[in-house]
């Protein structure tokens, strides 16, 4: 009998809910935990991003300390502590031990975190690789107790599991401290924690960061300004950006009684007139009850929105870094001859406003035979991985840099002594994956980045041309100057002037030459009081492996030398 049962019944026994946590267990690379080195960085990044968001939201000047302790060869303890507003007791387990829990996903506002995955993913990774629980301490004010939690994630249910819970003494007025044990690998150089923290400090001058690496001295990035960045404003979604699934969800949750008031209340840039027009274009009555709208009707509504002309979303909700700060950051990090930066007017993709900023540091200490360096930022967070698949990279490649004095092969990054910074600020930065490493290729974004690059490029081109011109002029003057002594010598023979008169002739000619050719502006001179040599060196250390290889080779050649000598003696 059992044999005659349809196979589907048998198969159905194996089919069940996949918890998001189990999904992550198998797909941790999607969240940036693909290798031990990156896992360590991602964990710190998530914790620091959360701290910064919390401080800024609460209007508190952030002071964050990061400590990485090497427990064994591949096990590390990470401690991140902030002076933010803290988290109320009830929420602590949910924020740290439950995936996709958070406030940021549901609102459109420029913030570092977006999904509510980051820190809980780190907790899960910690749990998976070391079996240890996460330790959280948080305090919301001087008169409130500090709560300490030991937490695990129940990966089946995606629910927090509280191992320990107690009130502790904490000298801080308020703030949050996260302590995680995880498998990792610590390396300096490119894509290192050092580099990430440095770039964060550069682009967030209102932040103080204290960093204790596993080896070596503590690093301190002191804040450069007491002024907090303008607080981003939360906005409602713009109708052009809404998709059918989200629209259905919104229709279910709304308090509005009619479609027209739903449109006006839940979306930005929709007034009574626009709302009526949307309804008309969707062939739906304005007084339709939102809850009664089914899938087919929702699809009509989407079509109707597309047909209706709706003004662009408000853009004052975005808080760019600003040209000055961007350039100042570059000056600290790179000793160059020429800097420029630009903040573009806001643009819109899929109904989401965004702002592109770009800055250039050209010449100086930078080598001219390598592709330019690109520093990418999204909502003030440095992006260190997957440069190749990022919209910023694509925009750089698509810009014709030859016009601006750099060399560039088709479809490649330009080559020259230059560092480029690009920042995208948006209420919703479209990343290519949950690990938030590369920006998705929206044509509007690529176009806007290109415009920013071109604007910087034009200024650069003027400078490079001017430099070339002045170099040429200075060469000319040097050439002319070499003949001045001959004029003196010839005059001496011709009209018998004295030695001192001959010297005078040479001096007078030099003066007359300078006067007739005008002042020679000095270019290419590095005049950069903001440059911070120590800071610049952080994250640029050679990987230790390379050094060892070098030594090995030297030893080998030594041995060979000795051998030949011995043979020679024989």
């Amino acid at each position, binding site marked *: 009998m059992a044999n005659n049962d349809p196979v589907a019944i048998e198969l159905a026994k194996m089919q069940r809910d996949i918890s998001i946590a189990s999904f992550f267990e198998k797909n941790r690379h999607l969240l940036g935990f693909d290798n031990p080195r990156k896992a360590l960085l991602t964990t710190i990044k998530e914790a620091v991003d959360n701290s910064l968001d919390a401080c800024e939201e609460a209007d508190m000047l952030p002071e964050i300390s990061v400590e990485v302790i090497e427990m064994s060869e591949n096990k590390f303890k990470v401690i991140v502590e902030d002076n933010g507003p803290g988290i109320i007791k009830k929420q602590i387990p949910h924020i740290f031990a439950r995936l996709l829990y958070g406030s940021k996903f549901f609102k459109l506002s420029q913030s570092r975190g977006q999904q509510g995955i980051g820190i809980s993913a780190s907790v899960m990774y910690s749990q998976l690789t070391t079996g240890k629980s996460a330790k959280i301490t948080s305090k919301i004010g001087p008169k409130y107790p500090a709560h300490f939690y030991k937490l695990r994630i129940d990966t089946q249910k995606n629910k927090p599991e509280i191992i320990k819970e107690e009130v502790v003494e904490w000298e801080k007025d308020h703030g949050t401290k996260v302590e995680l044990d995880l498998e990792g690998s610590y390396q300096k150089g490119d894509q290192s924690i050092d580099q990430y923290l440095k770039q964060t400090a550069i682009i967030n001058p209102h932040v103080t960061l204290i960093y204790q690496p596993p080896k070596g001295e503590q690093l301190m990035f002191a804040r450069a300004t007491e002024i907090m960045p303008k607080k981003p404003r939360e906005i409602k979604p713009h109708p052009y950006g809404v998709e059918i699934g989200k629209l259905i969800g919104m229709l279910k949750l709304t308090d509005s009684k009619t479609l027209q008031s739903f449109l006006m209340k839940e979306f930005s840039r929709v007034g009574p007139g626009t709302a009526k027009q949307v309804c008309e274009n969707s062939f739906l009555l304005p007084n339709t009850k939102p809850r009664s709208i089914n899938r087919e009707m929702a699809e009509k509504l989407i079509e109707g929105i597309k047909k209706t002309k709706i003004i662009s979303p408000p853009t004052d909700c975005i808080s760019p870094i600003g040209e000055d700060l961007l350039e100042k950051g570059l000056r600290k990090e790179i000793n160059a001859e020429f800097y420029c930066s630009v903040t573009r007017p806001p643009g819109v993709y899929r109904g989401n406003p965004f702002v592109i900023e770009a800055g250039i540091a050209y010449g100086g200490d930078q080598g001219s035979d390598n592709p330019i360096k690109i520093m990418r930022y999204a909502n003030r967070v440095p992006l260190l991985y997957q440069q190749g698949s990022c919209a910023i990279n694509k925009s750089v490649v698509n810009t014709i840099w030859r016009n601006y004095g750099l060399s560039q092969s088709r479809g490649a990054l330009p080559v020259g002594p230059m560092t480029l910074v690009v920042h995208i600020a948006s209420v919703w930065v479209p990343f290519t994956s949950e690990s938030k490493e590369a920006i998705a290729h929206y044509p509007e974004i690529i176009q806007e980045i290109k415009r920013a690059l071109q604007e910087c490029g034009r200024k650069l081109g003027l400078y490079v041309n001017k430099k070339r011109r002045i170099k040429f002029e200075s060469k000319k003057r040097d*050439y002319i100057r070499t003949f001045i002594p001959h004029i003196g010598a010839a005059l001496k023979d011709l009209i018998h002037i004295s030695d001192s008169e001959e010297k005078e002739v040479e001096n007078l000619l030099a003066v*007359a030459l300078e006067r007739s050719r005008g002042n020679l502006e000095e270019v290419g001179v590095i005049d950069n009081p903001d440059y911070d040599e120590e800071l610049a060196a952080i994250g640029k250390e050679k990987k230790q492996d390379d050094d060892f290889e070098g030594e090995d080779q030297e030893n080998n050649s030594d041995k060979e030398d000795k051998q030949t000598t011995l043979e020679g003696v024989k």
Partner: protein
Amino acid sequence: MVKKKNSLVLGKINELGNMVYKSIKKKKLPELKMPLRALSNVKYDPKNGFFELIGKMKERTLTASTIKTFAQTLRMMALSKELIEQDDIATKREAYYVSKNWAEARFNEQPESDTVMDDFEAMMMVNREQIGFIPEEKGGEIAGRLIVIDKDRDTGKPIKIDCTKFGSGAYSIPISVEELKFETQAKFILAIETAGMFQRLVKHNYWKKTNCILVSMGGVPTRACRRFIRRLSDDKKLPVYVFTDGDPYGYGSIYRTLKVGSGNAAHINKYFCVPQAKFIGVTPQDIVDYKLPSHPLKDVDLKKIKDLIKNDPFIQHHKEWQKALKHMYQSKVRAEQQALAKHGLNFVISDYLPKKLKNPTSWLP
């Protein structure tokens, strides 16, 4: 006489030196102005009979493109001054080697030093011998009924040189001809382009038969050669006939330069030209009339013809020349003097020259 001339030149060099010095003292950029030596800076007036400057100047001062030649010109002036003061001379080649002491202001190739020398000469409006420089090239050769009266280098006594007595050889025109005197009963001067044709005429005593003076120019006549013919012709009222290859070079470079001078040395054309010269052959018409063996014109020849018609004030003045050159341009052939040998080696003596000399309508102006 010599001394006085020299002191004039020295005075002018001094003046130029002081001018440069004064402008330097005034903290100005010193500059040297000199006539532009080019066809574009000459005009042709048949009344005067030679290319005259029309006053375009070039300037050298402290710019990247002129500083080197500016310094070189001053140094060249100093060298010239030294030569005149010590009554010495330097060949153009020697002057080039002297410049090797001038470090970065030295000349890399002799044409550069020749140019600076010529500019200096033009600035002074004198002939290069007067500023102490002499060319290396020979001045041309003479055979025929002429006695040249020169001076003994040591005693200063006159020496009579009889140009009939060189046998199969010839008298060489010296570099400086200004002091020479002449005695002759000849009826005309025949200036010949090639040494080969000159040899044939000498060998067969052409000058004896026709009572003339033969001059071998050997290509474009040197200044000495031009001046020699001019002085001889003026002195003895002798007509001058010119016999060259039938090609644009023979017309535009050799004959034109002999008759009216060059653009390059326009500042001295007044003395170094022979306005009374007439061109007897080989004309483009001769090539047709005598059925001469010819060579096709090369691109450079065609270009030269076009250039002559378009830019040479002398050719532009004479319709006959334009016609002749257009004729050659269309026929696209040229013929050498020696091509006459097709009709017999001595055809040139027995037929061609007598016929041509008798018939002025077959000449070109």
